[in-house]
């Protein structure tokens, strides 16, 4: 019998511990806690710009987090979302620079498709290696992150480099390869809509189709699948492809909606955060959206706290890490609470 109350209390305690940790850390810096907290609140809810900023930050997290959770479902641990995101970003840059005269209605879908394929292929290779040869994907996907970063660096110094710029950046892309701004005066672009649509599609795919059922089955019990004629390898390959493709779309949205040109370091570790997003979201598409918004809130808020009260924004990584660690230990820490309730229920 599942015990909802004990679970809920334990989660609330962890959130509370996170908040206490935050206040403690602010206290250590010697700054006024009320100043810092009001800076935090203003950063996430002070104006339409700041609210929009949270969603801007959440967009790539939703997409990469969705990708990681799809892969998780079939037992593929994808730590390579970072590299896949960069491959998507490279693809849109190359396409937009190659076909600057195409109308938006053709170019943008082309870029999204290209980004999906590029990210997908980047994750497909470790996927095939795992499915066909049994090579652990954990190390391979990390390797592919570094290789992707290297490729971006090489391209930005050679073919994609803007000849008029001293630094390794690409030329600014045409407007037809841009996502429109949703609310004037903010940076919120339609990438968030793409992310939500992707979440709905993935939800349908995973929970409403037979392919989704097979993907989940492969993740839960590969041996049973083998015995009942579901090809384990094939489904790992499919899910790794979808997973990488979503990360690739995240890269496309970052370029088309935010940067409008390829630079090194467009992703401050979204690919690694994505794993935490997927974990906090319980590998459920709508949970992923919530988790991504939560993490984005924490990050945007702490950046604003840094500006307002001089509290280092590194605080957000500490709290995030600590919360995940507590979640991992939850069943042991709150053993009494969860077990006792179970007996009563």
């Amino acid at each position, binding site marked *: 019998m599942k015990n909802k109350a004990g679970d809920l209390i334990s989660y609330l305690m962890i959130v509370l511990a996170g908040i206490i940790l935050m206040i403690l*850390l602010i206290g*250590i*810096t010697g700054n006024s806690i009320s100043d810092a907290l009001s800076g935090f609140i203003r950063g996430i809810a002070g104006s339409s710009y700041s609210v929009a900023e949270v969603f801007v930050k959440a967009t790539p997290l939703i997409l990469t987090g969705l990708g990681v959770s799809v892969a998780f479902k079939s037992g593929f*641990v994808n*730590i390579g979302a970072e590299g896949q995101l960069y491959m998507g970003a490279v693809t849109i840059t190359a396409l937009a620079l190659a076909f600057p005269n195409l109308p938006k209605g053709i170019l943008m879908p082309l870029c999204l498709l290209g980004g999906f394929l590029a990210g997908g292929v980047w994750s497909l290779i470790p996927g095939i*290696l795992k499915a066909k*040869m*049994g*090579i*652990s994907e*954990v*190390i*391979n996907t*990390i*390797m*592919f992150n*570094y*290789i992707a*970063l*290297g*490729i971006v*660096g*090489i391209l930005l*110094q*050679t073919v994609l480099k803007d000849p008029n710029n001293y630094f390794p950046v690409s030329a600014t892309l045409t407007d037809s390869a841009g996502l429109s701004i949703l609310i004037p005066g903010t940076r919120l672009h339609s990438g968030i809509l793409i992310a939500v649509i992707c979440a709905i599609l993935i939800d349908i795919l995973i929970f409403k189709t037979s392919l989704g059922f097979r993907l989940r089955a492969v993740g839960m019990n590969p041996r049973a699948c083998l015995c009942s004629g579901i090809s384990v390898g094939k489904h790992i390959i499919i899910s790794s492809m979808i997973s990488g493709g979503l990360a690739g779309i995240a890269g496309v949205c970052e370029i088309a909606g935010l940067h409008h040109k390829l630079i090194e370091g467009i992703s401050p570790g979204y690919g*690694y*955060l994505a*794993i*935490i997003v997927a*974990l906090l979201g319980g590998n459920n598409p709508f949970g992923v959206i919530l988790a991504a918004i939560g993490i984005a809130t924490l990050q945007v808020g702490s950046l604003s706290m840094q500006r307002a009260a001089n509290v*280092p924004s*590194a*605080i*957000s*990584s*500490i*709290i*995030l*890490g*600590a919360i*995940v*660690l507590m979640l*991992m*230990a939850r*069943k*042991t820490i709150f053993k009494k609470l969860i077990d006792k309730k179970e007996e009563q229920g």
Partner: protein
Amino acid sequence: MSQILLTIATFLAACIRMATPLTLAGLGEAFSERTGVMNLGVEAIMLCGAFSSFIVTFWTGNVYWGMLCGMLAGMIISGIHAILCIKCKANQTIVGLALNFFALGLTSFLFLIVFGQSTILPQCKTVPNFEFPVLGKIPLLGKAFFTHNIFVYLMYLLVFIFLFIYKKTEWGVIFTAVGEHPSAADTAGINVFRIRYLACMVNGLLGGLAGSYFTLAQLGFFMEDITAGKGYIALVTVILGRRNPLGILCSALLIGLADAVQFQLQTMNIPIPSQAFSILPYIAAVFVLLFSAGKSSDPSALGIPYERDNR
């Protein structure tokens, strides 16, 4: 002729310097993985080692206290990983990644608190280079391999110690048993949990030492994200070297070589993007994984928490 030989010797010495932290961390990680605990948090261990060794050396002015505290900090981080993965049976990959976030935030936070935002990085003492007695006198080889600092000599020593333990002592068999078949080891009266905790602690100690190499031997200062992904590269050396101490040393040297070539080219102003060389070790790692497929050397219980009454 002698000029060329001298250049080669200097070049080899540079490779050794690059390879030292990777080997140290790799040896620890390989030990931990042999007993079945995969720690993706090497980066976190190294960062905390680098930070605490720097700050202690800065305050006391004694590099050996710094090294000691670096190792201690590494052990604390690895200890958290061990408790979560062994006692709470959590997913080792996720705990490792979360620790990386935690450590990155913690070290930059504490550094900013102590030193504030400034453009001038505070400096600390570094360990001196010295010629190893007798061996350092060998022409060329002495210059390449035996004119280094204490970290490098420690690394040589540790490679042999681990080699000896794995191949020649009963301990080696015990560690392998715990990694390959924990319930059999348990039946034979080996305390699986204690062995795994021990391996995690050694991993933390060596990872912390590797971290303090950056601050105390290479740079003499600390900055945010000083390890810059070296922890993940240490994981590569473990895979490339197939968890064998000599293999780890060789693969770390290979990665060091790619690094050294890259620096050399940059100083020579050759118009090839430096990334073309820096990605070579990663591509090599992928190919090594590819060609070693099928005859996997992974311990069978790698990444799986051990539960006594679970069959």
